[in-house]
């Protein structure tokens, strides 16, 4: 079916056209053209995607729609096609990526209005959409990897969009390099899969069919390495440090790439390989532990940040931790459900934050905001819904997805993970309401008037707010009177664990209680006055400086590498290799000098050389003829 091909192709073509038109005349402002084409492409994709989604959901649960674009590599009997597939998992990802992506494109047209490089921005943005759809729709891991790399590339380009500031370039490079570390794991895992499967097909379906060929220890290794890739892309400990720095990019980028879509690619990948991870529950447990630790760690840091986008970045990392807890413990559909709901409310939070930032003339420090509730009513209302959703207050979306994950953690009897996740839930409510109260309630003095917000920036907020409020009902548990439609629809090989309704109610009440405690704490400390936290105690010192992880990495990795580079540059290259070449060069120069002296232009010398040559030749002839 060619619809799948078009879904992926349209954003790529649009990105190409936008890029070409932009390069044709960089200075010229073509706001309407860029915005129209830039928005049209994801819009078309989302219409097609919803169409595909409709078709797939009408089929049986395990039905898959395939589409082959062209044959890419042919090695004897072994083929790698540029092929796409849509099963129910990809359809879910597809629908929210395209729809939320379109909304963020519209928002971005308002946010980026008047910025230099507007056409370039939309070119990159569409490139990202195409890459992400390629990743999600890939029929085999190779194509998935291509998409995986392309989203990394577009993320790099967009983080460094404001390239006049060298700090942004640094952030972009950091994101790119840390992702390389993850991709290294990913590609080794793919190679191992290829080798161990001995050419018995390389699409997801055939890997699933032949998974028995791989012995258990090799499977463990592959699972671990795949997760290394996921760690890099989805910002989990220890490869998370790029995500907070990635906030250097424009806010729509953070909303689309670093909140809703790209960072969840790791979760999607683990879910896509769920058949593999079901064979190796040990690795799954490890993934869950990393996820729990990341969730708690990021939540603690987020509670002390004062940059609005950094808070949201750490919050994203924390929520990604939840998703990994779920997929690690084999509750794949709960994990993807959280991906789904998180995309709505986190994109909304970022877009609301972006609206506040624009209104305040690009101010990002929350302690310089304050009291915006009256001026920015709409932004406040939508942000409140998103905050309620992420904090896990029913009936907003986040409660149901988070509750499902916590229930899975509790039912799996990994109580330490469950406790960490529950604590994180409290901290989530605390730091989110802290942000909300400081930005919209607390008093602060402002010098400038607020800038007005355009309709393009506000009505996507409303749509997403509706999504954040209601998306949770799709996955309503039996305990809450639903039938877990989402879990049934997506049909992933979840590990079934039974939990009685009464304990589910208990857990639900506990979660709400935790959220309320967090909210109450935030209300108590921040609703009236907001004072930026000082680095007075040792604990605050450590947390505000993000536990000095960046500095630690700098000491352990960056500096030794730099010393090694300097050593090989200054000593091995300049002294060693260049030295040897230098000796050779000076030898040639010296002998060249000797010969130029012979060639002095004086005819009589030349006659002498002829004489010498003839004399030698004569001697040789005499020697041959035996004259001497």
């Amino acid at each position: 079916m060619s619809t799948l091909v078009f879904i992926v192709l349209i954003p790529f073509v649009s990105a190409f056209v936008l890029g070409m038109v932009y390069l044709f005349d960089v200075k010229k402002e073509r706001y309407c053209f860029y915005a129209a084409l830039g928005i049209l492409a994801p819009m078309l994709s989302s219409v097609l995607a919803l169409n595909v989604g409709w078709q797939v959901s009408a089929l049986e649960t395990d039905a898959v729609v395939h589409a082959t674009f062209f044959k890419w590599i042919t090695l004897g009997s072994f083929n790698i096609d540029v092929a796409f597939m849509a099963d129910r998992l990809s359809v879910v990802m597809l629908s929210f990526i395209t729809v939320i992506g379109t909304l963020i494109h519209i928002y971005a047209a308002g946010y980026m209005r008047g910025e230099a490089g507007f056409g370039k921005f939309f070119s990159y943005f569409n490139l990202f959409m195409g890459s992400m759809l390629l990743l999600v729709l890939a029929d085999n891991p190779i194509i998935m990897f291509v998409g995986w790399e392309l989203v990394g590339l577009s993320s790099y380009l967009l983080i460094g969009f404001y390239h006049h500031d060298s700090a942004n370039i640094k952030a972009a490079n950091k994101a790119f390099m840390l992702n390389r570390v993850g991709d290294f794991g990913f590609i080794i895992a793919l190679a191992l899969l290829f080798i161990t499967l001995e050419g018995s097909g390389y699409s997801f379906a055939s890997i699933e069919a032949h998974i028995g060929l791989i012995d258990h220890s090799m499977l463990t290794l592959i699972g671990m390495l795949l997760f290394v890739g996921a760690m890099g892309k989805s910002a989990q400990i220890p490869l998370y440090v790029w995500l907070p720095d990635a906030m250097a990019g424009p806010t729509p980028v953070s909303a689309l790439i670093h909140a809703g879509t790209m960072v969840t690619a790791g979760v999607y990948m683990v879910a896509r390989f769920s058949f593999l991870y079901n064979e190796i529950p040990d690795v799954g447990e490890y993934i869950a532990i990393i996820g729990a630790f990341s969730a708690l760690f990021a939540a603690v840091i987020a509670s002390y940040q004062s940059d609005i986008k950094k808070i949201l970045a750490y919050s994203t990392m924390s929520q990604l931790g939840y998703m990994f807890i779920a997929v690690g413990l084999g509750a794949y559909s709960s994990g993807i459900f959280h991906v789904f709901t998180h995309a709505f409310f986190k994109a909304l939070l970022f877009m609301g934050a972006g609206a506040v930032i624009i209104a305040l003339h690009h101010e990002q420090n929350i302690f310089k905001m304050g009291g915006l509730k009256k001026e920015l009513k709409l932004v406040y209302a939508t942000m409140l819904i998103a905050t309620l959703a992420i904090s896990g207050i029913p009936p907003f979306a986040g409660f149901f997805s988070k509750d499902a994950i916590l229930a899975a953690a509790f039912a799996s009897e990994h109580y330490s993970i469950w406790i960490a996740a529950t604590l994180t839930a409290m901290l989530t409510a605390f730091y989110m309401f802290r942000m909300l109260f400081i930005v919209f309630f607390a008093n602060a003095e402002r010098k400038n008037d607020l800038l007005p917000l355009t309709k393009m920036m506000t009505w996507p907020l409303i749509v997403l707010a509706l999504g954040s409020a209601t998306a949770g009902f799709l996955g309503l548990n039996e305990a809450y009177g639903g039938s877990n439609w989402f879990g049934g629809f997506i049909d992933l090989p979840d590990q079934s664990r039974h939990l009685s309704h009464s304990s589910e109610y208990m857990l639900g009440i506990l979660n709400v209680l935790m959220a309320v405690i967090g909210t109450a704490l935030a209300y108590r400390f921040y609703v009236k006055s907001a004072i930026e936290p000082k680095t007075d105690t040792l604990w605050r010192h450590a947390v505000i400086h993000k536990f000095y992880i960046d500095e630690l990495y700098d000491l352990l990795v960056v500096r030794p590498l730099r010393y090694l580079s300097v050593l090989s540059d200054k000593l091995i290259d300049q002294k060693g290799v260049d030295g040897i070449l230098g000796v050779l060069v000076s030898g040639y120069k010296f002998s060249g000098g000797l010969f130029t002296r012979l060639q002095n232009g004086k005819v009589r010398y030349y006659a002498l050389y002829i004489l010498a040559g003839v004399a030698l030749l004569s001697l040789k002839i005499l020697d041959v003829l035996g004259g001497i």
Partner: protein
Amino acid sequence: MTPENFFLLATLLFSIGLVGVVSRRNLFVVYMSIELMLSAINLVLATFSRLHNSMDGAVIVLLMIAVIAAEAALFLAMIVHLYRQRRSIDSDVYTALAQKKEHL
């Protein structure tokens, strides 16, 4: 008179010419030395012609004398031309074939 004496004389003349070309700087002397070497070769040709009782060599000698006469006119014209360029008949002044100094 044995042919050896003729060869000896020819060798002697040729050597004197060669030394003249190599060691003298006056263009006229260089020119005369060249003429001397040509004469030496003419002598060798004439001697061989006589030795082998064949007139081929003698014919070539006569031909060469004519060529040498023409060449003399050309050579003298060149010397005059060179003199007009640099006001010198020292052969070491004319070093257009040399490697340029800046490349050294």
